[in-house]
């Protein structure tokens, strides 16, 4: 794959391409490359016969027919050049993905060796093959390709999945580590390397201070993806998780910004004091400007999604397009594209998630993960491939000291900074945390690509830098990446009590954890920051109104139920799983038995059962993993718990509606429609949930909205499927009785619009029987029920009659 090496970034000025233009631009870039010797592609293992090398016009005839003296019509021909570029790109990506499959087949391997290592090894092998076959260095990744195509998905992924509340809670610490820590590292490494270079014996005296500063700035970029992957396994303090994650993200932005500043310094002949100040000012402008650009784009994206209810299919596209545009715009103005992208994704996320459908949301998440995964894979493979080259310049002193200083300064930096910042924090950062932060400072893609960007004319020893960068990356990724997990386990074991906890201790500990989580939820999350409250108020009053369609607040429970398939839930109930729960009463009725002593191997079994089956505590901070979607709510567990508790939830729901009905028309914003209305439609039992929520699941209010009374049908034959109205889920293709405008309760007769503010979910004309029938068809048939709809009830909540014995989740009517 021929990619131009060492291109500068000045050609980006004209690029305002959308993502589909990805490949087109790539094609243009690739066509600039050398056109020779592209025929052999060892990857698809085909040797081209004949010596004809003209790229565009030659067709190689593999005519199986008789003669080829003249230009006869060839039955079968091969034209590789026509498809060369997309073919090779696809092959690279396919290769990377196949490699990933390969690793995970050997599960043991995947746990010992982080993915990045394996990818680099593959890259090395490939590079070796190409080198061996062609006696020439393999192509090197262009920095344009990296910064324009490979980096944005990774940053977008990290920014989108960043949990905002913990992030902003710890923003001070994160900025402290990212900015001050990086500066510390840079200056430390630069100065000490310069000192080493002064030593005559090492033959390095032509390296100036600015060169080492520039080198230092690029080598300080930390990429702890491997560490984050480890966090999934070890039980990590949630604070630590967000610190490492946030620091890595901002660190990249800081590094890139400083890199450019130092590069300009390098290119200036003499440095005046005003230049230094200009440099500092530029740093801040770059950062803050990037954030502003990001926020603007984020809000525009959110605003756009407010109107996408008719074009659900392309909703994900908006998210990606706006993000990418944001990045490119920031780069166009020489601002920090990374900061812009982070700001854009974080500001967009909340509002967009409110506006788009569940499926679009899932699509966005999957695509982001997919792209970032592919990007990262490609980067590491290229890293491996580029290592096999004969242009390395090796200098023992430089390389070894670089590595040494990277480690030392990182460790020192973390220790010193933590001492200072711990004074200002409520939850202090422990030693184990510090160790993880320091040891988890792996270098990765950013420093790799930045080093290729070094201008050769001021860096006569560029290859030396490249070599040492590669060595540092290899060392950190391989050695540190592989050993961090055992080390952390070792540290964990040292701290904890050597004794195995007894069964009762385990149970009680888990009990306390759940209890504490529950009480903390009752207290709600709060911080002590004045600005946070202000921001929340601002958000509630202005932004949400502007950017969210219909201000449909989401409740925690509804959001969770969205993830449940109703059918599954009911099946679970039917299959008798729940009977176990309700039959705990039967256990109580048994006579109190003697306690049997438990034998040792039974003890082991007990411990196994506990280990596997105890419910997990709710995690506040969803863990981040580049290679899979976050399991922020452990869905199965949640499903089960909700189903089991639905009995009591149902009770409370019933009471709520009764209470609400009793204080009929009041100033309470959740007042019910008149009961008088109910008599006109005796058969309609419509139950819908609209819920009010503040933000981030802080408070929920369930509003049970009953429109009519109905008699309970005693016969089980009329069990009906109960549908919850999934917000945004109902498609409008099948609408028959669709109203042209989305407001108005006319025709349905369900009453004057007394609460346009209260029934956001009902404003949209939903389909009536069709969709829900479509959804619940088979299920309903199996239960011999039918969904009852009146054709002009366009509100499309399904009627739900219930047999008292049947446990059905949540939808109820008052008796």
């Amino acid at each position: 794959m021929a990619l131009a090496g060492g291109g500068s970034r000045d050609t980006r000025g004209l690029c305002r391409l959308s993502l589909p233009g990805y490949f087109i631009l790539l094609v243009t870039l690739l066509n600039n490359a050398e056109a020779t010797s592209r025929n052999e592609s060892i990857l698809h293992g085909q040797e081209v016969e004949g010596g004809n090398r003209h790229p565009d016009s030659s067709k190689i005839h593999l005519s199986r027919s008789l003669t080829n003296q003249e230009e006869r019509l060839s039955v079968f021909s091969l034209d590789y050049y026509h498809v060369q570029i997309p073919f090779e790109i696809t092959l690279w990506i396919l290769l990377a993905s196949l490699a990933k499959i390969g690793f995970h087949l050997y599960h043991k391997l995947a746990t010992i060796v982080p993915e990045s290592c394996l990818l680099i090894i593959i890259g090395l092998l490939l590079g070796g093959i190409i080198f061996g076959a062609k006696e020439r260095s393999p192509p090197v990744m262009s920095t344009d390709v990296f910064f324009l195509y490979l980096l944005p998905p990774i940053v977008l992924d990290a920014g989108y999945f960043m949990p905002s509340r913990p992030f902003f809670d710890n923003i001070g610490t994160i900025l402290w580590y990212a900015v001050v820590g990086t500066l510390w590292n840079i200056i430390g490494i630069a100065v000490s390397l310069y000192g080493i270079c002064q030593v005559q014996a090492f033959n390095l005296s032509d390296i100036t201070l600015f060169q080492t500063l520039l080198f230092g700035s690029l080598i300080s970029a930390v990429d702890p993806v491997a560490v984050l992957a480890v966090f999934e396994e070890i039980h990590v303090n949630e604070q630590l998780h967000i610190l490492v994650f946030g620091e890595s993200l901002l660190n990249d932005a800081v590094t890139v910004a400083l890199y450019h500043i130092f590069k300009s310094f390098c290119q200036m002949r003499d440095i005046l004091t005003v230049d230094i100040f200009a440099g500092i000012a530029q740093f801040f402008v770059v950062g803050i400007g990037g954030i502003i650009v990001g926020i603007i784009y984020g809000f525009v994206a959110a605003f756009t999604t407010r109107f996408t209810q008719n074009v659900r299919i392309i909703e994900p596209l908006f998210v990606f397009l706006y993000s990418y545009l944001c990045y490119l715009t920031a780069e166009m103005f020489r601002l920090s594209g990374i900061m812009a992208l982070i700001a854009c994704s974080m500001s967009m996320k909340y509002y967009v998630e409110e506006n788009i459908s569940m499926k679009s949301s899932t699509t966005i998440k999957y695509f982001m993960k997919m792209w970032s995964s592919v990007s990262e894979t490609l980067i590491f493979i290229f890293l491996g491939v580029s290592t096999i080259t004969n242009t390395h310049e090796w200098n023992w002193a430089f390389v070894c000291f670089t590595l040494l200083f990277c480690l030392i300064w990182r460790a020192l930096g973390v220790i010193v900074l933590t001492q200072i910042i711990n004074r200002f924090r409520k939850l202090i950062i422990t030693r184990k945390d510090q160790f993880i932060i320091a040891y988890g400072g792996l270098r990765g893609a950013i420093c790799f690509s930045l080093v290729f960007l070094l201008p050769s004319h001021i860096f006569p020893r560029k290859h030396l830098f490249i070599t040492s960068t590669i060595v540092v990356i290899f060392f950190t990724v391989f050695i540190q990446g592989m050993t961090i997990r055992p080390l952390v386990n070792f540290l964990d074991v040292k701290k904890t009590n050597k004794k195995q906890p007894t069964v009762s201790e385990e149970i009680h500990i888990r009990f306390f954890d759940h209890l504490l989580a529950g009480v903390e939820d009752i207290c709600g999350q709060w911080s002590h920051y004045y600005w946070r409250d202000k921001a929340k108020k601002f958000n509630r009053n202005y932004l949400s109104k502007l950017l969210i369609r219909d201000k449909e607040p989401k409740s925690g429970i509804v959001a969770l139920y969205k993830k449940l398939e109703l059918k599954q839930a009911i099946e679970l109930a039917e299959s008798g799983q729940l009977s176990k729960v309700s039959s705990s009463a039967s256990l109580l009725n048994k006579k109190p038995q003697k306690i049997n002593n438990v034998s040792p191997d039974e003890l082991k079994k007990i411990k196994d059962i506990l280990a596997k089956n105890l419910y997990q505590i709710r995690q506040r901070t969803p863990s981040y993993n580049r290679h899979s979607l976050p399991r922020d709510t452990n869905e199965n567990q949640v499903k089960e718990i909700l189903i089991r508790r639905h009995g009591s939830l149902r009770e409370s729901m019933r009471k709520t509606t009764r209470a609400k009905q009793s204080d009929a028309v009041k100033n309470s914003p959740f007042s019910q429609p008149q009961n008088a209305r109910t008599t006109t439609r005796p058969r309609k039992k419509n139950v819908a949930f609209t819920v009010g929520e503040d933000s981030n699941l802080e408070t929920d209010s369930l509003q049970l909205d009953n429109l009519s009374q109905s008699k309970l049908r005693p016969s089980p034959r009329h069990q009906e499927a109960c549908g919850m109205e999934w917000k945004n889920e109902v498609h409008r293709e099948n609408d028959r009785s669709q109203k042209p405008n989305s407001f108005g309760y006319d025709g349905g007769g369900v009453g004057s619009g007394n609460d346009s503010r209260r029934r956001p979910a009902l404003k949209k004309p939903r389909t009536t029987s069709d969709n829900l029938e479509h959804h619940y068809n088979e299920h309903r048939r199996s239960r011999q029920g039918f969904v009852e709809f009146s054709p002009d009830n366009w509100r499309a909540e399904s009627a739900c009659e219930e047999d008292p014995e049947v446990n059905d989740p949540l939808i109820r009517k008052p008796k």
Partner: protein
Amino acid sequence: MGSYSSHLSKIEDLQGIIQETGFTKAHICRLYDRFEELDKNNKGTLSREDFQRIGELAVNPLGDRIINAFFPNEKQTLDFRSFIRILACFRPTAKDKTADPNAPEPINSRTNKLRFAFQLYDLDGDGKISREELIQVLRMMLEAQVTDDQLESITDRTIQEADLDGDGAISFEEFRKSLENINLEHKMSIRFLQ
């Protein structure tokens, strides 16, 4: 905090609360905000339904029990004073152990925390966690696929480990003893209620 003082004026007997619970004014204000937030209908008291609206509590295995703990003795409403009194139990214990032995035990002492947890186990309030009560709690905390037999053997083992006087139930003292190795203060203290 702009509306600080206006809130404080709404809270009755502020000094009494501070005395009893040990919270700072800022915390009390915060908790009052939260109280008002939970109280959707502005009744001035909380009911069970208000608690059940909290989404995260709904997916807590012990959700029901926790809510019940706030409404002892069949009470149906909860005023702010009781609310904050119960929450005071979860305040982190003070680091200094120079408490005057004659002073009444602070509300957030280890014993009180344990007692709170004990109450959650012991539904009928007889001062002992019987086998059935323990089975109920375990059933709530374990996934649905655990069979009854397994559940019973776990319960048996738990009681066996903790029960010192052989009566087949766990009294408060035995409960406390079985947990003496655990760093409870950390586990039963809400971090931001410092």
